[in-house]
């Protein structure tokens, strides 16, 4: 059992080995399903010159946005980076580089990276600024772009429940990019709301099998809502 026991008990251990200049893949869509405590630990560590791959970059003062406050991020790979004034400022004055990537292409880059596929063809982005400098090829009369996959030195993931073996399930739409990031990190760290006994999760319903996961930590989460809309 000890060989498969992925649980760590401190955030210091969870992010141990993170160094300046590394690439970090982060799960989450907007503020939904983000590994908020692992992000806070990266801020505490003051690691610099990071490349962050995440669909979005949080908001001012929460989520990945807090890593901008001390200029820890040198490059973001994202599909949408609105809602963040500090991000705009650092982008405009050249302190931050951004590689805007179509959302589906970004998801597939992580999926392919984790699956050992170095690149893939997609019709997304053909004839647009995204295609600049990329090889294209025709299949069955249609033009496709060659997109390279992404892997990271670290993947930081937010799950709902995990067991000690690192089997993870996600809750509702907090799944989003999390299982993809989980496959593509050299070191994959998952923080969850609840640790359950090995054998408790239905094997057929596991979203991220433990083989992808290196560390599991249990956290408490604020789960801030970005856009609260109700029927009332």
């Amino acid at each position, binding site marked *: 059992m000890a060989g498969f026991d992925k649980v760590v008990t401190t955030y210091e251990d969870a992010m141990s080995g993170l160094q300046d200049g590394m690439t970090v893949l982060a799960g989450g*869509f*907007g*503020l*939904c*399903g983000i590994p908020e405590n692992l992000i806070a630990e990266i801020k505490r560590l003051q690691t610099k010159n990071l490349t962050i791959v995440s*669909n979005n970059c949080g908001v001012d003062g929460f989520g990945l946005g807090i890593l901008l406050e001390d200029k820890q991020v040198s490059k973001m790979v*994202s*599909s*949408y*980076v*609105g809602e963040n004034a500090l991000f*705009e400022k650092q982008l405009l004055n050249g302190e931050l580089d951004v590689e*805007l990537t*179509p*959302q*589906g*292409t*970004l*998801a*597939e880059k*992580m*999926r392919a990276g984790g699956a050992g596929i170095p690149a893939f063809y*997609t*019709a*997304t*982005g*053909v*004839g*647009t*600024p*995204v295609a600049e400098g990329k090889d294209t090829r025709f299949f069955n009369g249609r033009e496709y772009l060659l997109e390279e996959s992404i892997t990271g030195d670290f993947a930081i993931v937010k799950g*709902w429940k995990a067991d000690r073996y690192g089997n993870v399930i996600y*809750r*509702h*739409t*907090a*799944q*989003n*990019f*999390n*299982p*993809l990031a989980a496959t593509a990190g050299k070191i994959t760290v998952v923080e969850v709301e609840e640790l359950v006994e090995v054998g408790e999760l239905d094997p057929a319903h596991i*979203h991220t099998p433990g083989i992808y996961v290196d560390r599991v930590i249990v956290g408490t989460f604020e*789960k*801030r*809502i*970005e*856009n*609260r*809309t*109700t*029927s*009332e």
Partner: protein
Amino acid sequence: MALSRDQMAIRVARELQDGYYVNLGIGIPTLVANFIPDGMDVMLQSENGLLGMGMFPSEANVDADMINAGKQTVTAVSGSSIFSSAESFAMIRGGHVDLTVLGAFEVDVSGNIASWMIPNKLIKGMGGAMDLVAGADNIIVTMTHASKGGDSKLLEVCSLPLTGKGCIKKVLTDLAWLEIENGAFVLKERAPGVSIEEIQAKTQGRLIVPDHVPEMVF
């Protein structure tokens, strides 16, 4: 009279069919969900990983883990499914979504669409729009026919950086329903009380006007 936002949504809703899986973009496309005909089963796909999006929740049922692509809190209908972003875009890119409705800045006679970037203004990103227009066969673009300054948005060649190339066939503006065929906009329907001359004056790209162009009825 130009169509209201609700009238535009009502007109788009007439294109729905029973059993359709539909992706609705932000803005007017979102309103289409309010006009799904009674007795028709339509499932809404939200690109963050939800097939079967429901209404906004009651105050008591707000859940931070349950959002749509606009990051709004939502519910899921009975029979829905939830999955990863890669799975979501496999559906989109793989052509499994029956109808996609989205907004745009410009469309041209070659079916090109520009909807995400205005040079020298702040660029927020394309989100899922490039995947949606590349993956869908059946797309309806909704937008105003001309800018507030009177500049046409239906062009011979898009002036802004593209979201997708040669992928648009149907456009609903506040003045008209048009389809793109053989390098031209074909005027299919006009808004009630809007003259063909007004539509011609506000369409910069090549426009074909058939002998009879019916007025929409609401």
